[in-house]
């Protein structure tokens, strides 16, 4: 025992250096995840918070009631809808923009790089407020522009399916910039020799794109897919600010369901169980991505 202390004292500096950050991470990331797991098997709520003796162990009850909770099922289906439409859309749009931006070297392309990047650093609440105005049925810009070309007003946020698509449009707009930068960095890292070789082999532009560029972007695509997928699974601020999950829970995401149960209804045990189901989805999605990546890693 004494030896350990002697070692620690002699080599104290690295430990001192990591101590503050490590302390925060342990207290607010590592301990909580263990705690959350425990909580998910209890019925802790506002009353339990005030008086610990009222908390009881309920086994798998929370998980079982979640799976029969129509609202939860709906939030899962909505989240899948967001993921299935949103993720490919973000990848196609950001890769397309990156390819266009990579075409030229003059100043104008640098300016556009900045313009496309801007939405991704702006505040999500502010952005949701702005888009809420644009989407407004009576006073919004979008419906006005449609009325100019004689198209009837669209209930952007008032019909469940359209509302989901509207939120996706906003999130794609916001997610474009960061992912585009990742693709651009990868594009600029492709050695010129590959293109020259393709040219000598007589490949046309389309063939070069299809068989040289896109395969060489596979790591960037993989990275963007994983981070975007995880981001969409945790979709929260957009539905919170713009629709508060409505209409008829049509835009309710899993993250919003968890927030609502945990902090508005104070059913913390129930919400914690929901958060573990979300965590499970994230882990499964990540593992699948890694497996797919391994399967076509011949490039």
């Amino acid at each position, binding site marked *: 025992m004494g030896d350990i202390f002697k070692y620690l004292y002699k080599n104290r500096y690295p430990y001192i250096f990591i101590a503050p*950050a490590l302390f925060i991470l342990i207290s607010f990331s590592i301990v909580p995840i263990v705690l959350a797991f425990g*909580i998910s098997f209890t019925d802790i709520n506002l009353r339990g918070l005030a008086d610990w003796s009222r908390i009881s162990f309920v086994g798998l009850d929370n998980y079982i009631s979640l799976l029969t909770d129509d609202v939860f099922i709906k939030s899962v289906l909505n989240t899948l809808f967001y993921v299935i439409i949103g993720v490919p859309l973000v990848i196609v749009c950001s890769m397309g923009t990156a390819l266009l931006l990579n075409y030229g070297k003059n100043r104008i392309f640098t300016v556009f790089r900045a313009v496309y990047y801007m939405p991704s650093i702006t505040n999500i609440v*502010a952005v949701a407020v702005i888009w809420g105005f644009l989407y407004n049925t009576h006073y919004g810009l979008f419906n006005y522009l449609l009325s100019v070309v004689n198209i009837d007003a669209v209930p952007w946020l008032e019909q469940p399916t359209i509302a989901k698509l509207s939120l996706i449009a906003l999130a794609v707009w916001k997610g474009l910039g960061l992912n585009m930068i990742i693709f651009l960095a990868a594009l600029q890292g492709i050695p010129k020799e590959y293109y020259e070789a393709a040219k000598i082999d007589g490949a046309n532009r389309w063939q070069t794109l299809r068989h040289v560029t896109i395969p060489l972007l596979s790591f960037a695509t993989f990275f963007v897919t994983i981070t975007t997928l995880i981001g969409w699974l945790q979709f929260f601020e957009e539905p919170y600010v713009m629709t508060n999950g409505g209409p008829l829970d049509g835009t309710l995401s899993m993250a919003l369901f968890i927030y609502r149960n945990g902090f508005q209804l104070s059913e913390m045990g129930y919400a*914690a169980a929901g*958060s573990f189901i979300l965590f499970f989805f994230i882990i499964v999605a990540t593992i699948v991505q890694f497996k797919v990546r391994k399967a076509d890693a011949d490039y």
Partner: protein
Amino acid sequence: MKSKRKYKKLEEILITLLLIAGGVLVSIPFLWMIFSSFKPANEVLAMPPTLLPENPTFENYQNLFTNMSFGIYLRNTLIIVLFSFIGLFFNGMAGYAFAKFNFKGKEPIFYTVLATMMIPAQVTMIPVYLILNQLGLTNTMAGIILPGLAAAFSIFLFRQFMSTIPTDLIEAARLDGAGEFRIFFRLIVPIAKPIFAVQAILTFIGAWNSFLWPLIIASDQRLYTLSVGLSLLQGQHASNFGLQMAGAAFMVVPIILIFAFFQKYIIEGFTMSGLK
């Protein structure tokens, strides 16, 4: 040959046009926000809408501070920004230790730190709330600030950068009798300035935009940040779009200005963060 060059020129024009169209589409929400924020209440709701405000007014911006408590929200947000810079030094110190020291348990500790990046906020928010509640820190500034002080991704980026600092340099400073803290603050921080700059900008943006955690912890308006205040404004003044746009502009414009100045660093920050 000549027709080929002509074709190339045409293609460049086409791509530029495509980029301009996309750029306009991307900027519409920002432009609409700025224009609408200067319109008086009746003009904002006018149909057909005006593009530029006909009677420009600062009324909406004044309202943010007189009728809404945006002054207080701004102060709270700046406090969070300030403390997040202290957190930045914690991350930098940890990154330095992981990069340049050998100590028992280094590998497992580092991988544990990385693993915390995987944990979604939704899982930890409830237990963290319970922990802070137990400490009596809910509805306090400390409760809002503390959990955000350390970030695994930031530690990782610092470590990547500091691994490239030559060890000989540190050894030389040690031989000269400099203490470890002196070495860190006087030698390492100046060398690692680029990564500190990038991280400082990202930290500022993150803290300025912080929403979910203040929303959970602050039940009192006195502790609201700008984002939480803005979402409250949107709920309370649902049809006062001029005021909403002014609130949004107040949050977005500083970030756009910072971005305009430091664009190179921000974008390079992501590229050099080892995505390759």
